[in-house]
């Protein structure tokens, strides 16, 4: 029998038992549904992480810290020994912790490591306020601008290099600070207030501290940042300025504290860092002198790790559904063989080969797998596509990101795997059919 005839006959015998076929296929469909959505979510998460990484990190740079906990490592449940290098740091959740910081001396040591091209401190200065004459004051954070970053701009341009007291201002501040338009804002100045830490000694009242210890600086707006498509959560309203200006602001706000000229993390540019070997080599050398270095790849892996765990759980459920459906297929196929004993006997009498009869039933199992896979994946795709904008908005991933990304090839491979699993499940029943004695099968009395 030709393959195409077998496939057609197998499909036809399924159609003659529609309810049974459909119910068996539904079990696979559940698995296919879960797996398709998981894969889509995994694609979405991966691309989200990749977007964040691509916009915020230079792959030839390493993040170097003195304290593992900054990078999410270490054991937070054990007491850490204190040394003079510790300074307070505020985590995303608002908790104030003491972390070991990198001092100027440490940076010198890192600079001396062979293969290190340059080092820049990651500076995030807390501003007291931003304002303009006759306008309200707003809180803000000023960060040193990473030179490789290419944010989307809606007005102005980023000078190369960005030096002095120039600032990149997020779009959201334009209206707040009373500019008539984004274009009008470019080249204008804003006033930035930075608070000095309270001087030791004389006791002060709260209001005195605020009024007396502020330093006010003028910044020129170089460009307006478009609402970021992808950014690290919580950094959407950051202002950016040159490395030296950020440095100066930071020095003012930390002078006399443990955080003065001490950094939670620095960026180390590796010479010829597109070569992964160079990255690893420098990474190891930095470890040797007592610091921790994380490459962009590591960061990516760390971010993806959490996603992977969640995915693993959903995939496990999907696989359980597939596993359960295997028993369904075996059962259905045995019933099919039993019901068609006569037909098998006849086909054998007419000279159909054992091998072809076995195949006929394996194709039948394959059809069930294909049907289930297609139903499950189709429903997941349809539902996912319909609900994707809504879910994405709810999860608040920011514009340009999708929670679910469906890849046709991936879905195709998934269905193929389900078909193969179904064929394997149909193996024993198909052997039973192939081995059937035609004389027994055709006995009438």
């Amino acid at each position, binding site marked *: 029998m030709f393959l195409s005839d077998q496939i057609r006959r197998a499909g036809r015998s399924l159609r003659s038992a529609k309810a049974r076929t459909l119910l068996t296929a539904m079990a696979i469909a559940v698995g296919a549904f879960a797996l398709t959505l998981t894969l889509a979510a995994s694609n979405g998460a991966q691309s989200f992480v990749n977007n964040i990484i691509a916009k915020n990190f230079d792959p030839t740079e390493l993040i170097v810290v003195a304290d593992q906990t900054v990078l999410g490592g270490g054991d937070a449940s054990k007491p850490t020994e204190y040394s003079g290098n510790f300074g307070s740091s505020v985590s995303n959740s608002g908790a104030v912790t003491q972390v070991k910081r990198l001092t100027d001396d440490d940076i010198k040591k890192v600079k001396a490591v062979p293969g290190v091209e340059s080092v820049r401190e990651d500076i995030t200065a807390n501003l007291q306020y931003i304002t303009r004459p006759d306008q309200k004051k707003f809180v803000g954070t000023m960060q040193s601008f990473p030179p490789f970053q290419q944010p989307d701009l809606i007005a102005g341009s980023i000078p190369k290099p960005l030096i002095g007291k120039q600032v990149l201002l997020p779009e959201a501040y334009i209206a707040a600070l009373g500019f008539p338009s984004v274009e009008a804002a470019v080249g204008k100045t804003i006033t930035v207030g930075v608070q000095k830490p309270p001087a030791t000694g004389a006791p002060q009242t709260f209001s005195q501290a605020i009024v007396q210890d502020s330093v006010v600086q003028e910044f020129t707006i170089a460009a307006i940042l478009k609402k970021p498509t992808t950014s690290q959560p919580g950094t959407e309203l950051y202002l950016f300025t040159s490395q030296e200006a950020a440095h100066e602001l930071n020095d003012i706000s930390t002078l006399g504290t443990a955080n003065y000229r001490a950094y939670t993390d620095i960026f180390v540019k590796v010479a010829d860092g597109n070569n992964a070997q160079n990255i690893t080599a420098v990474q190891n050398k930095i470890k040797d002198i007592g610091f921790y270095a994380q490459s962009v790849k590591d960061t990516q892996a760390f971010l993806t790790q959490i996603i992977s765990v969640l995915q693993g759980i959903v995939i496990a459920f999907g696989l359980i559904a597939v596993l359960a459906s295997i028993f369904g297929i075996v059962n259905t196929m045995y019933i099919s063989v039993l019901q068609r004993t006569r037909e098998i*006997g006849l086909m054998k009498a*007419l*000279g159909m080969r054992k091998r072809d009869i076995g195949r006929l039933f394996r194709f039948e199992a394959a059809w069930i797998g294909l049907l289930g896979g297609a139903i499950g994946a189709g429903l997941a795709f349809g539902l996912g596509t319909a609900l994707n904008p809504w879910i994405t908005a709810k999860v608040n991933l920011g514009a340009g990101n999708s929670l679910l990304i469906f890849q046709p090839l991936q879905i195709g491979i998934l269905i193929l795997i389900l078909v193969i699993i179904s064929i394997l499940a149909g193996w024993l029943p198909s052997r039973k059919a192939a081995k059937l004695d035609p004389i027994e099968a*055709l006995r*009438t009395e």
Partner: protein
Amino acid sequence: MIELKDITKTYGKGDSLFTALYKIDVAIPTTTTAAIIGKSGSGKSTMMHIMSGLDRPSEGDVIINDKALSELKPRQIDKFRSTEMSFIFQAFFVEANQTCYQNVMLPLEIAKVGRRNRRKRVLEALSAVDLEEKIDAQASKLSGGQKQRLAIARAIVNKPKIIFADEPTGNLDSTTGELIIKLLFNLHKSIGATLVIVTHDEELAARCSMRIYMKDGEITRIEGKSKQPTATSKKTRRV
């Protein structure tokens, strides 16, 4: 020519040993119509199964056109059956939930007949049994006589050299049975195949040119043209 040489078929072992066929020796010449006649349980079907290579004898050999079936591999016997033989059964064995077309098509698919000729050949076969109008009807919608005609169409579609019919009228009333018999003999004339009919109907047997009478697994008498000595005489010689 279909030759059965000293065929013995036993079932079981030891105390439960049952001899279904004992030293069967017979030759059916090509294009003959041969009837195998005997009571129920006399071994007619068993003999037919062995003749067609569907079953293997415990002893002896089947030789069809000078080829010994015992020397053929299962694959070759399958090929042989799919290209040179066909079957008609008492219980029709047509697939009720398939159309007439799909039923008649089965032997062509099994024999890997090219797609181009199929429909034409199915139509030919169906018109030979006067069912061409039912080509796309479900087999379940047919009457008993029509079902057997459909089975006959399926049996002739592949232009076989030998047609085995196991009690083809057993499930039909006498008028319908009569029609089926007429049809079978007409077709035999027009396609020139060897026709082996298992029956216990004397009237039907009388129309065949050769009659093989069986009792308890042995041939008791052979009537009509046969170049072979009768089984009984040979058996006595050997004992």
